[in-house]
């Protein structure tokens, strides 16, 4: 049998050749779609910049649909499939389950993405990513998505299979690593998500070819959001795993306590899926009890999980830094962090951006009554650019800047340029989210080609500030896209032209068993670190600062709500 395993001399990771090839293929596909989606996003932002308005209405809606589908589904799911293979096969040092099926999955995803893209480009499917019935798209739009989802589902089950193999062949000792545990959380959510997608997209496809006469729009929304929102919860679980992974890779950080971090992931599994109900808060017919239960009670336990990760990820970095001697004051550990290393800076900007902007805005706007203020305004894309772009995409970029050189055995292309990447992308995106959220608070609606209502029988003008904010959003988008272009250039350059490091040497012998640290079992070794029994006091101060902003922002919004018309 051909030698199958290699150990990376720099990272110490063990790669199984078929797994390695699948990871490469999925990661490359992901980056290609990211580049396409990024350019579409630039066109969207330049159209919504009132003074520029680069596209006409028809092209705008086509491009906006393409941007949503390519970014929210295609780019992210390709990367997540690569991540699942990595977190199972590579981290557990085992062979990957059914690699040939992995290529079938890859083919289905590529084929599905191509069919849906073609349906969009043809212009007959400008229905936005949500494709709310009864607005019709071409049958290919739904069919491509179904194929894509089937492919992704196969990838998810290969992840489960690989975990079984690793356990069966005893390639690791004890429990799976925390990062793999987080990936497992993402995979479980993915099964729920894709099931919801199948339940709604298959009948909708049959409806589009005339086989079913009617799809109830409210039922469609209820089930569709099980796909639409929960797919973004896969991202949360995945990018939190990436945060832990980067903390481990860059700092050698270990979780402050496995129990807390794993417990928080477990809360996601139990509670995060019902949070998709917050998309239906402005819908007719759903009862108050249903809304409060789904969006608040249960969702807030999932929010609690995110608040926990928000402390434990930087906390584990702080502890690791203090152990290395950066133990003075509250923030020496942070000042002495490697800010010039894009793997770290990207991860940290993702953490801060997701927490402060995405998390707070998401919970506040998901409150039952607050939602009436911003439902379907451009505040909503503002929020999810903070979560999906600043949170997930930036975390995945940071991971890629480390993983791609390891995978391809090449040095990072133009490392000096790569240093700027997370800053441009992160700050550009953060500004975009602020300006979109600001414009949404002033009433500007989302998915709108022209905020001046040209051609309408009536005149209405949004406040001048709203126009300014949409212009600033356009400028910020240009900055973010620059950061995105640097990412693509650096990654593609690394794959094609990066200076080769030592060639990959495969061996037939099985790699050694993956062992955990031989840590004392009596308790923490954090004694003597930090302040007053708090091993991570700096992180605690930052967390309290987050909470303060959260509380203030929550009540400001209720105050604003109290000033509008009364309704019941």
């Amino acid at each position, binding site marked *: 049998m051909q030698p199958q395993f290699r150990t990376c001399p720099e990272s110490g990771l063990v790669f199984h050749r078929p797994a390695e090839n699948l990871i490469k293929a999925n990661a490359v596909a992901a980056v290609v779609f990211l580049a396409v989606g990024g350019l579409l996003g630039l066109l969207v932002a330049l159209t919504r910049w009132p003074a520029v308005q680069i596209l006409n209405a028809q092209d705008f809606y086509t491009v906006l649909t393409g941007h949503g589908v390519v970014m929210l589904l295609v780019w992210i799911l390709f990367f997540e499939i690569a991540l699942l293979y990595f977190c199972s096969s590579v981290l557990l040092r085992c062979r990957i389950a059914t690699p040939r099926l992995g290529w079938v999955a890859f083919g289905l995803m590529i084929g599905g993405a191509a069919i849906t893209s073609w349906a969009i480009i043809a212009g007959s499917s400008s229905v936005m990513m949500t494709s709310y019935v009864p607005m019709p798209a071409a049958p290919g739009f739904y069919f491509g998505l179904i194929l894509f989802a089937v492919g992704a589902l196969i990838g998810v089950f290969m992840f489960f299979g690989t975990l079984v193999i690793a356990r069966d062949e005893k390639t690791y000792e004890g429990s799976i690593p925390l990062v793999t545990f987080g990936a497992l959380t993402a995979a479980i959510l993915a099964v729920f998500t894709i099931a919801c997608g199948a339940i709604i997209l298959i009948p909708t496809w049959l409806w589009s070819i005339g086989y079913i006469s009617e799809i109830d729009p409210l039922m469609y929304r209820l089930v569709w959001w099980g796909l639409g929102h929960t797919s973004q919860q896969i991202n949360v679980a995945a990018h939190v795993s990436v945060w832990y992974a980067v903390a481990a890779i860059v700092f050698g950080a270990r979780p402050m306590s496995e129990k807390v971090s794993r417990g928080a992931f477990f809360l996601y599994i139990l509670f995060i899926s019902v949070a998709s109900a917050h998309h239906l808060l402005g819908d007719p017919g759903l*009862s108050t009890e249903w809304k409060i239960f789904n969006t608040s009670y249960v969702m807030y336990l999932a929010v609690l999980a995110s608040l926990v990760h928000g402390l434990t990820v930087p906390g584990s970095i702080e502890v690791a830094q203090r152990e290395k001697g950066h133990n003075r004051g509250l923030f020496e550990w942070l000042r002495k962090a490697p800010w010039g290393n894009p793997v770290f800076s990207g991860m940290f900007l993702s953490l801060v951006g997701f927490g402060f902007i995405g998390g707070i805005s998401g919970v506040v706007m998901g409150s*039952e009554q607050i939602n009436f203020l911003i439902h379907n305004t451009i505040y909503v894309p503002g929020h999810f650019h903070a979560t999906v772009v600043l949170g997930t995409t930036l975390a995945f970029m940071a991971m890629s800047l480390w993983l791609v050189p390891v995978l391809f055995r090449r040095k990072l292309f133009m490392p000096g340029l790569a240093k700027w990447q997370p800053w441009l992308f992160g700050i550009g995106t953060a500004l975009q989210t602020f300006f979109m959220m600001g414009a949404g608070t002033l009433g500007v609606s989302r998915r709108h080609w022209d905020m001046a209502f040209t051609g309408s029988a009536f005149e209405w003008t949004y406040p001048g500030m709203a126009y300014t904010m949409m212009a600033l959003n356009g400028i910020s988008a240009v900055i973010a896209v620059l950061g995105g272009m640097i990412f693509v250039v650096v990654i593609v350059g690394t794959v094609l032209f990066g200076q080769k490091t030592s060639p990959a040497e495969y061996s037939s012998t099985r790699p050694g068993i993956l062992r955990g640290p031989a840590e004392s079992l009596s308790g923490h070794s954090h004694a003597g670190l930090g302040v007053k029994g708090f091993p991570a006091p700096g992180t605690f101060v930052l967390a309290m600062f987050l909470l303060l902003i959260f509380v203030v922002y929550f009540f400001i919004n209720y105050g604003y709500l109290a000033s509008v018309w009364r309704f019941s």
Partner: protein
Amino acid sequence: MSAIQPPARRVWWKQPVDRVEIVWIAIALVWCLIMFFFMPYWHVYGEQNYSGEAYRVNPQDYVAKVNEFVEEYTVRHETDRQVPVVRPPAGGDVYLLARLWDWYPILELEAGETYRFHVSSADWQHGLSIQPININFQVLPGYDMVLNVTPTEPGEYAVVCNEYCGIMHHTMMSRIYVVDN
């Protein structure tokens, strides 16, 4: 020694927890519970809630109902398209129809009076957005959503569609006049 390795102990849930984590979890949980209780609290003490009242309706029947309403209470017509302006009696039922690509009819309401406000769609999904007060709801065909609305301030309000409904979506706009009684 890290998150990409197995935990030090197989039975990881017995690992002791740092004090900083316990304190933070307790604080965060309290805040989560406050946010939770604030929603039912607002239903009791706040004045901006949707009760969930809605009825299944055939879109044609709804359109007929709107036409009946327009015929009965129209006070004048506006714009080149002669859109009716309808002034229903204070405290009565008000019907608003969303369709490609306008809101029908224009409404004239009295400040401080409460109306039973019906809204539904004749075709695709639309978004009811009242500006500049920025109240936003989803409008679905087949569902008659009923809100008890009390406009508080006189003035001229815009009704904007904020759910994408096709190429002319951005022209889908109308008015609500709120007048002193």
